[in-house]
């Protein structure tokens, strides 16, 4: 590719500032206006084609911003065999884009070759831990780099679990060497749904393993008069989650913070305003 040289020499590491999720509708505007966000994150799956517009735009945006690759379908927690075809394509994308971070989820989304298109939880047991550690080790060895694992939003818990979620993530990071992508909106949503204490969660997570924070909006659903919080990524970050960010920054120090927004996508200015708000909090920590 004509642009390969400049890509490999472009600054790759993700700074401890606010970034935004990149969606195709904003490609042209971002390139034209170069908003002052620190970095961009994309869903790896959207760039696994052989060519065409998505890769064309990503390679141009790569010249302007560090890129983080966030995967949603590796299905690390699944008992299906690892999807090596997917991993081959992901590796080729990593070589093409030179991302600062590569991340996936503590979840599964396929079984018997069928894909759920949702991040389903696993029981937090020793058996699941060793299953996940061996798969994460295999993935990290194949990709030749460390990956980050994100805590999911969840709507159910398994009775089998013998760890709470942050203990499980800590053990996963310790045994596989993976980093942690702490999604504060997911901490909030799951805490609300299961009656956990979100502050305990943030205090309990191994701060030295946290490499990135996510923020997003959620939706409150009523089922038979009871509330269930759903991770919808379709609205601004709520005040409670901003408060969690302040706690997290106080505990972990400055970290890259991503504003995620996937459906009912707003104007770019709305996303950059959220990112500025996050940046101010990250910057405030230095003072």
């Amino acid at each position: 590719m004509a642009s390969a040289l400049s890509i490999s020499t472009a600054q790759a590491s993700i700074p401890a500032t606010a970034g935004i999720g990149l969606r195709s509708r904003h490609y042209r505007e971002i390139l034209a206006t170069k908003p002052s966000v620190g970095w961009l994150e994309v869903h790896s799956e959207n760039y696994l084609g052989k060519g065409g517009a998505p890769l064309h735009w990503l390679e141009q945006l790569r010249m302007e911003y560090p890129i983080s690759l966030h995967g949603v379908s590796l299905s690390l927690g699944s008992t299906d065999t690892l999807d090596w075809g997917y991993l081959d394509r992901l590796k080729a994308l990593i070589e093409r884009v030179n991302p600062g971070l590569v991340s996936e989820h503590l979840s599964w989304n396929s079984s018997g070759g069928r894909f759920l298109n949702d991040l389903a939880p696993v029981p937090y047991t020793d058996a699941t831990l060793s299953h996940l550690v061996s798969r994460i080790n295999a993935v990290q060895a194949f990709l030749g780099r460390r990956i980050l694992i994100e805590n999911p939003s969840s709507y159910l818990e398994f009775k089998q679990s013998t760890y709470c979620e942050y203990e499980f993530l800590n053990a996963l990071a310790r045994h596989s060497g993976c980093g942690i992508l702490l999604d504060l909106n997911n901490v909030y949503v799951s805490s609300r749904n299961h009656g956990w204490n979100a502050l305990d969660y943030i205090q309990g997570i191994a701060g030295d393993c946290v490499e990135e924070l996510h923020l997003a909006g959620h939706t409150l659903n009523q089922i038979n008069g009871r509330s269930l919080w759903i991770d919808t990524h379709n609205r601004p970050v709520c005040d409670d989650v901003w408060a969690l960010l302040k706690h997290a920054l106080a505990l972990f120090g400055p970290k890259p913070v991503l504003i995620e927004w996937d459906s009912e996508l707003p104007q770019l200015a709305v996303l950059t305003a959220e990112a500025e708000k996050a940046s101010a909090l990250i910057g405030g920590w230095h003072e």
Partner: protein
Amino acid sequence: MNNLHALQQQFTAYVFDHADAEALFADITPNGFSAQQRLNVYRNNTRLGLTEALKANFPVVEKLVGEAFFKGLAAAFIQKYPPATGCLQEYGRDFAHFIANFPPARPLPYLADVARLEWLWQEAYHEADQGKMMLNRLTAIPQTRHADLCLCSHPSVRLLVSSYPIHRIWMLNQDGSDHCETIDLGLGGDKLLVFRPEQDVEVDALTDSDFLWLSLLHSGHTLVSAAEQVYQLDPYFDVSAHLLYWLEAGLFTDFYLRHD
């Protein structure tokens, strides 16, 4: 209690097949909701997410049938053809085939072909990039080898025949098209070329002779053999003008000389 494998099998069967999941229910902490209510969040998220994915890949089909019909169509399709990949732009390979055999869609006989066109568009959009071939490369071929000359078409090239005027249907239902007209299905069918020279996918309606000529070249016939067959359909077919036109458009990216 279920082990991880059994738990995932039952969970997936609950989501896609609406299968009974009593053993799985017993593994779920109720905590204010029934296990079923909790699992239904995943079933709904999957159905909504995959319906959105199909809508994104088949926007004209959705426009033609309307939101409510599309929801039902998508739900039936998702159950029969759940995705075998997490890359949703690759979901829907079987959608056209499914529509062709979906009884409620029978009043719209052209719908399956519109879905076929949208799928080819989707494939072309993500295909590999390749630059156009320079004409002077052809002039360097010795005359003695001209009969062996074959052309390689761009990786995104797709050809489609329909008995319905799907090009017109597709054009009128593009975003930004404010045209409103009634299409006479008796207008006859279309022979279409789907092709992405750079970033934008083009859909062109071809004449019978152009379609035959491109199809023959695309399937590996020599330039000479393709011309001979096209002359039977159209004795006035101008091979060099067509060759120059499609070379310039970027449709041919390379050539090779056939060995006997």
